[in-house]
């Protein structure tokens, strides 16, 4: 039965090829965008989760300001954290170790080229080096990490060494950071995080002099003692700092985050962006649906006589409705199917382009659910758009319809 309707519908669509193709464009574009956005967004979330899991769940991040801006992001706040806070935190129960980092965006010159990169000024004592070593972002591939006694030495990220400048930066090369020459003593392993792979690490004392920051920190990385619950420790740190600063709960001018929160925080920001973009793409799908409705109305008008004939040979109103719902649904479905294909290609293209730019954490994640969901949704939008035209078709007076020339 449905197969027979399909034949009738398909033969009609074939006859109006150009119009049918134009009609599916709206849905096609919308679904393309949605598929690309969702698969890239999901891929990004997965990648970020994986990246941060390399930090380990026993870490707590303390930074100035009410909002966490990312491990090496700049803080838009006048609030500060300094050695006094570091000592406070070190004395909180369950804290094993606190590292203070200073991070700045800085001008890096190599050869004739000048670029901007994140510079992380980190302590060089063996405890700090050991802790940073345990974090997947800071694994040295070639050479060594900066160590005690180093002054104008740096270890640099993988992509910064390989791709940032026309000439590759080699071990023992000198790079110019904010007018000061540093010798490269180590090149990090590729971490997959674009931020860390394009970063320079220098000793903290040198960094303080260079940037003119005598006592503040950009962030603390806190390691929690084995057996302590990071969530409880984080809460204790918060309370201690709040008391010290005479602040009410909820009014903190600093933030204390668990690794897990950082992941979900980044995830939330991504989802919001993703939802906004998908919302825009959905408008295209709605416009596509209106296009289908319009085309189906035209088709109903053009096929008036045929509708009369179908009724004359025994088609019930129900059959007529189904036929035009199928017609509209197919327009949606074909648009959706092409959209899925095109969206997949687009997502893969973005993935490749991003990888070329060094951001190879971006992987398109296409699930069967996403594909099937898109197809069902497209068919649904099409069929829904066909409801009014289909009802119009079914209500047609047979004698009038059949008397059309």
């Amino acid at each position: 039965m449905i197969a027979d309707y399909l034949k009738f519908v398909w033969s009609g669509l074939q006859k109006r090829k150009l119009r049918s193709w134009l009609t599916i464009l709206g849905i096609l574009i919308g679904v393309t965008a949605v598929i690309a956005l969702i698969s890239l967004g999901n891929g990004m979330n997965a990648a970020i989760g994986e990246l941060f899991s390399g930090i380990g769940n026993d870490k707590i991040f303390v930074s100035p300001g009410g909002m966490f801006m990312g491990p090496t992001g700049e803080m838009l706040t006048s609030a500060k954290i300094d050695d006094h806070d570091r000592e406070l935190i070190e004395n909180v129960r369950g804290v094993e170790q606190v590292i203070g980092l200073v991070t700045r965006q800085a001008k890096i010159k190599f050869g004739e080229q000048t670029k901007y990169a994140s510079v992380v000024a980190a302590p060089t004592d063996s405890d700090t080096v050991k802790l940073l070593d345990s974090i997947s972002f800071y694994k040295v591939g070639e050479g060594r990490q900066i160590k005690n006694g180093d002054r104008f030495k740096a270890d640099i990220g993988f992509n910064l060494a390989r791709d940032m400048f026309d000439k590759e930066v080699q071990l023992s090369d000198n790079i110019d950071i904010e007018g000061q020459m540093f010798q490269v003593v180590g090149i990090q392993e590729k971490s997959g995080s674009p931020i860390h792979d394009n970063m320079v690490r220098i000793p903290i004392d040198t960094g303080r002099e260079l940037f003119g920051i005598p006592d503040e920190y950009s962030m603390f990385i806190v390691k929690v003692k084995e057996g302590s619950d990071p969530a409880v420790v984080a809460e204790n740190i918060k309370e201690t700092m709040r008391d010290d600063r005479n602040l009410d709960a909820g009014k903190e001018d600093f933030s204390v985050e668990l690794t897990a929160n950082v992941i979900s925080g980044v995830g939330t920001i991504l989802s919001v962006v993703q939802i906004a973009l998908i919302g825009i793409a959905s408008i295209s799908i709605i416009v596509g649906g209106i296009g289908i409705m319009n085309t189906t109305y035209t088709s109903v008008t053009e096929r008036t006589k045929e509708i009369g004939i179908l009724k004359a040979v025994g088609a019930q109103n129900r059959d007529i409705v189904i036929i035009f719902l199928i017609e509209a649904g197919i327009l949606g479905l074909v648009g959706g199917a092409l959209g899925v294909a095109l969206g997949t290609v687009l997502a893969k293209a973005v993935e490749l382009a991003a990888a070329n730019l060094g951001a190879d954490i971006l992987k398109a994640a296409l699930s069967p659910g996403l594909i099937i969901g898109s197809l069902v949704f497209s068919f649904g939008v099409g069929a829904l758009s066909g409801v009014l035209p289909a009802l119009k078709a079914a209500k047609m007076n047979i004698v009038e319809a059949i008397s059309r020339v």
Partner: protein
Amino acid sequence: MLEPVIELKNVWKIYEMDKVKVTALEDVSLKIYKGDFICIIGPSGSGKSTLMHIMGTLDRPTKGKMILNNKDISSYSESELAQVRGKEIGFVFQQFNLIPTLTASENVELPMIFQNIPGDERKKKAKDLLNQVGLSHRMEHLPNEMSGGERQRVAIARALANDPLVVFADEPTGNLDSKTGKEIMLLLSHLSEKHGKTLVIVTHDSDLAEGIDKKIRIKDGRIVEVTRDGKTEVTR
């Protein structure tokens, strides 16, 4: 006494358009018996098509009763009517009225689809019917690849597809040259007789009505004369 296949009782059809009333049928009563070969004749605008549409369940009377096969179908719902129409009635129109995007064989299959007849059975029946109308070589052709006479043959095959009680033909030769028209008339009467169908032909052409055993003449929406085998039964 024979039971009528179709019986109209005091049927009126009045079209109302912007205050103007057109009475297309005025108090029409008639009986059509199984196996009848009837010709409805009358001048243009006399209400022949309207009468056929009501008898063929394509339209409802404004007043009066329409009885098909002993059932009063005046009160049937739309979908009940559609079922009865699909099963018991076949149409041949002046304009052929084939679906242009479907082949000859698919057009013949169409009425069977709505009776839920399985695909292979439909194909067999369509092939057989197209064979009977002499079109076995045109099965896979689209209507616009066929001559008018060939198209009307497809329409005849389609009208017979569900083995209906009655076949209605509204000016079936109106779009054909006289030679082809005669062939189509012959084919229609021959097939109806062979399959024992009741056949109602509408025409305003008295020549075509020659030799048809029963004639209903209408004028201004009223039956003015009924003739059977040359004998006039009713006159007004």
